[in-house]
């Protein structure tokens, strides 16, 4: 048990009483008053000392001492501003970089959807499939489903309180406010089941949310608008709620506004602006509707599990239901699908984070960035530790003196520790400041359309705690060593005179830190080099089409309400109108322009061949193009001809294939004149191959693999499919999205010119996006560019920090060897010898660092191999370059103190003794 703390005033009173009593005694012995008072004081000894010792014995002392130490630290730091600023900035950069990256990781990888009880949500699928999957089989698992299958699963999964379905892909909608004079604008839309909002437990911000009643063919068409769209496009106008809108030319009423934080079921750079009931899909999409196609899978599922239900049991139950459903469609299945029927399965996975396509996409890159930031933080810590060690050395004399005068070692250690903790906390504060500014920057670099991203860019509380923890740990870990060394300071040595010691205590830890820095910097530099080389390889590859003088304009005729039969004249008018702009050389339309991000594939059946077995890979990508397409995009035709004006509705159905298609399906045979069909072996004579185009890259993924088979069909030619599902797809494929415009070399096309030319064709036709082909291609490599840039940035930072480290070690060693150098010079060493002596020491450190860094770099290359797109991860040129950069930086850093050493005057150095 502790006694109650005695107040200091009480103790002071006691000492005063003592003085009075002693004075009385001395007076009684006949001493004069003044003399008695002086003597009493003298007898008491050091009154302050007594007070202090009294004070130290109290148990609250440590708190007061922390405060004292902190004040002392600030006083010390003020006398060494260069040290303080360097340490705080260095720490700030390291912690700021780490915090920024961690904020992103937290936002993208760790956070749940802003809905109630996200842990009760389960999603369908291990993998994320997008956007439409045809047929009665789906690779390894059913991760998206048709509407019919959704209804079936919903009936057979009792454990779900609610099971919601929603569109897996993105959908542009042409929206016009009723009575508005402005043309329809494009918005992101998503078809969702009536219980969508109920499943997430999300209410309306204004008006009402969608209900099960809205999701029925008989209901009046209503939509829910996102808060973001309401704010961005309608200035929070209250009349929007209950207002009339035209969506894809169809009347809709906006029933309500979703809450501000709700960004839908997935983290995406383009969250939906409108949520429409599934039942309105045929109403909006017309002939290309998928709702009633049992084998068109386009809906993702998320459900809220009732408390107490076993998810594994529900998964099994749903697998059985899936098999039942597939059995019921046995008659519609192709032989392939029948063979694979037994393998078809599904998975239930925690869905609190939504449909996490984005996470999967970014996860590995964020992990690499985390590692890079961690390395930078390590280098920063090494640097700060070095600074603290130097400071400890410089204060050795002072410390020794303090100890000689009776200061207790523990107190001195605590003082040193306080200083490093204060420094690191200040550095942490600077880091948080840098993080607040840096995260937004990072986010805008990381993801296109970052301003619309539903990601919190300011570090949240856990992130701030993380930064605080990191800085505190840095302070404690790297404060103990200098403090320990300070404690071991030998008073005798200090009193013997400054810098006369022969031992260079503490030079080993300092050298080790410099070596560590060099090694880590080498890892970062070589990783940066590899990523940069990979980016160059990606950007400078032969794409098989031309980027210069080409523009891509995105439209959607479906939004303007065009019927399939009206499309051919529309395309002709668009080509004429845009082609009439001065400076434009040619115009062509295509379903998907290269590197635009979308694609379509089909099963191929070559005429005259036996039907492919399930093991055969007979998949090819398909595209639909207008005449003059190949000339406009700049892809050479290597054999036969391209698509011409003669290939129109009613003429012979033709196709142009790429070289990969010819190789895969015809090997050494001449493909010209051969026939093939798609989707159905019964129509294998459908297309006649009239030309072979050079391989060109269309897909934005699989960038390190060779281009796969492609075939190009003329717009306007419609295949009469026997299967109804294929017929819908055929209609959808007639709606071309992209216009490619080629201008004469050096010419320009402004957005205004393009808009006017399109408006002249039809004012209802919204122009969704226009950019140069170069922009379209380089936007695909945004992520890779970000990785390369950030790693390079961090690599440079590491290089600078390592150079500072080498400089510090060398400068300190020069300083403490002044006498030795003076002596050597007095004994006949010339300046060159001294320079060599100092540089040899520094270069030895760098060499050891490099030797340790090279295997680490090779290991790091192995880790980031998937990001390298075929660049050899053991690239000797990259590592050599990094070694050279580090060696040069280290040499420069060591040269400054070495030159200073070579200018030491032997006389002065010896006199300074």
């Amino acid at each position, binding site marked *: 048990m502790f*006694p109650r703390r*005695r107040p200091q005033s*009480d*103790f002071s*009173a*006691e*000492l005063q*009483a*003592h003085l*009075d*009593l*002693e004075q*009385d*005694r001395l007076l009684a012995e006949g001493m004069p008053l003044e003399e008695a008072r002086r003597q009493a004081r003298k*007898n*008491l*000894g*050091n*009154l302050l*000392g*007594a007070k202090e*010792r*009294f004070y130290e*014995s109290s148990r609250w002392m440590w708190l007061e001492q922390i405060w004292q130490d902190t004040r002392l630290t600030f006083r010390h730091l003020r006398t060494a501003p260069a040290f303080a600023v360097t340490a705080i900035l260095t720490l700030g950069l390291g912690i700021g970089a780490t915090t920024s990256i961690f904020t992103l990781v937290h936002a993208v990888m760790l956070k749940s959807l802003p809905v109630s009880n996200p842990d009760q949500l389960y999603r369908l699928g291990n993998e994320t499939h997008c956007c439409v999957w045809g047929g009665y089989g789906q690779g390894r698992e059913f991760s998206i489903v048709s509407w019919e299958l959704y209804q079936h699963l919903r009936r057979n999964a009792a454990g779900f309180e609610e099971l919601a379905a929603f569109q897996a892909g993105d959908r542009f909608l042409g929206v016009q406010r009723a009575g508005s004079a402005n043309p329809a604008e494009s918005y992101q839309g998503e078809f969702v089941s009536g219980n969508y909002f109920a499943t997430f437990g999300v209410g309306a911000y204004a008006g009402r949310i969608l209900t099960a009643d809205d999701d029925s063919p008989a209901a009046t068409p209503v939509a829910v608008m996102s808060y973001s769209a309401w704010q961005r496009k309608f200035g929070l106008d209250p009349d929007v709620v209950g207002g009339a809108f035209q969506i894809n030319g169809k009347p809709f009423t906006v029933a309500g506004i979703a809450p501000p934080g709700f960004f839908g079921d997935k983290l995406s750079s383009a969250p939906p602006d409108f949520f429409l009931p599934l039942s309105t899909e045929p109403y909006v999409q017309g002939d290309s509707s998928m709702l009633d196609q049992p084998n068109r899978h386009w809906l993702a599922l998320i459900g809220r599990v009732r408390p107490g239900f076993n998810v594994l049991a529900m998964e099994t139950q749903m697998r059985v239901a899936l098999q039942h459903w597939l059995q019921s469609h046995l008659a519609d299945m192709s032989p392939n699908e029948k063979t694979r029927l037994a393998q078809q399965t599904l998975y239930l996975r925690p869905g609190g984070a939504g449909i996490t396509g984005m996470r999967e996409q970014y996860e590995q890159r964020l992990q690499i960035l985390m590692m890079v930031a961690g390395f930078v933080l390590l280098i920063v810590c090494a640097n700060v530790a070095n600074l603290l060690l130097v400071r400890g050395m410089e204060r050795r004399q002072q410390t020794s003196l303090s100890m000689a005068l009776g200061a207790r070692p523990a107190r001195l250690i605590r003082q040193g520790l306080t200083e490093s903790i204060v420094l690191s906390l200040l550095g942490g504060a600077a880091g948080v400041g840098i993080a607040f500014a840096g995260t937004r920057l990072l986010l805008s670099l990381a993801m296109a359309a970052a301003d619309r991203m539903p990601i919190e860019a300011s570090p949240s509380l856990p992130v701030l705690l993380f930064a605080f923890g990191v800085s505190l740990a840095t302070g404690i870990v790297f404060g103990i060593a200098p403090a320990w060394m300070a404690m071991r300071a030998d008073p005798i040595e200090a009193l013997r005179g400054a810098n006369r010691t022969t031992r260079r205590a503490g030079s080993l830890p300092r050298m080790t830190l410099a070596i560590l820095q060099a090694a880590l910097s080498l890892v970062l530099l070589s990783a940066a080099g590899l990523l940069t080389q990979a980016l160059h390889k990606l950007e400078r590859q032969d794409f098989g089409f031309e980027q210069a003088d080409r523009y891509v304009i995105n439209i959607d005729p479906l939004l303007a309400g065009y019927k399939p039969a009206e499309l051919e004249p529309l395309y002709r008018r668009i080509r004429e109108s845009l082609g009439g702009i001065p400076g434009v050389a040619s115009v062509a339309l295509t379903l998907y322009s290269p590197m635009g991000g979308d694609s379509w594939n089909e099963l191929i059946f070559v005429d005259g061949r036996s039907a492919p077995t399930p093991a055969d890979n007979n998949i090819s990508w398909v595209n639909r193009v207008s005449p003059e397409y190949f000339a406009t995009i700049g892809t050479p035709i290597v054999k036969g001809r391209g698509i011409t004006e003669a290939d129109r509705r009613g003429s012979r159905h033709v196709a142009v294939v790429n070289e990969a298609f010819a190789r895969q399906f015809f090997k050494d045979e001449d493909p010209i004149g051969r026939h093939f069909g798609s989707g159905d072996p019964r129509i294998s004579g459908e297309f006649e191959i009239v030309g072979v185009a050079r391989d060109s890259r269309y897909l934005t993924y699989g960038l390190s693999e060779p281009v796969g088979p492609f075939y190009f069909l003329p717009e306007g030619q419609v295949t009469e499919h026997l299967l109804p599902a294929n017929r819908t797809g055929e209609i959808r494929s007639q709606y071309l999205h992209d216009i490619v415009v080629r201008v004469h070399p050096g010419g320009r096309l402004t957005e205004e010119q393009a808009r006017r030319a399109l408006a002249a064709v039809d004012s209802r036709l919204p122009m969704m996006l226009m950019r140069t082909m170069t922009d379209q291609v380089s936007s695909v490599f945004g992520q890779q560019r970000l990785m390369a840039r950030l790693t390079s940035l961090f690599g440079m930072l590491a290089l600078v920090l390592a150079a500072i480290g080498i400089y510090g070690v060398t400068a300190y060693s020069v300083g403490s060897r002044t006498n030795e150098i003076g002596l050597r010079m007095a004994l006949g060493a010339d300046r060159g010898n001294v320079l060599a002596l100092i540089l040899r020491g520094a270069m030895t450190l760098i060499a050891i660092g490099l030797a340790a860094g090279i295997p680490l770099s090779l290991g790091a290359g192995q880790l980031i191999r998937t990001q390298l797109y075929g660049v050899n991860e053991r690239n000797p040129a990259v590592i050599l370059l990094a070694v050279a950069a580090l060696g040069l930086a280290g040499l420069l850093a060591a040269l400054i103190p070495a030159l200073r050493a070579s200018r030491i005057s032997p006389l002065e150095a010896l006199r300074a003794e």
Partner: protein
Amino acid sequence: MLTLEEKNRVALLQGTLDLLILRILIFGPQHGQGIARAIQLNSGEVLLVDHGALYPALQRLETKGWIGAEWGVSANNRKARFYELTPKGRKHLTEETGRWRTLATAMARILDLEKLQTGEN
């Protein structure tokens, strides 16, 4: 310059001050100045108490529960803090005194032995 008298005085050995304080308090409650004075007088003016060391020692003993303290009035009517031996302190004193006697006897023996040997030579 030290006077002859001061030269003959001995600084207290570490740890002995506590024992002396307890011993003085056997005679009844006393304040700090009185304790210091008593040690000095009872040792024949040989033991000099550093007053600055006295009060931390008193504080230490109080914390250990060997002495208690209370404000009171001194003989010449001054307000002072009086210290008093607790039963626990008394017990400690008894033990410690025994230990010191043993130590002192042992030391005296060795020192006398040396004197004897010197005498023989």
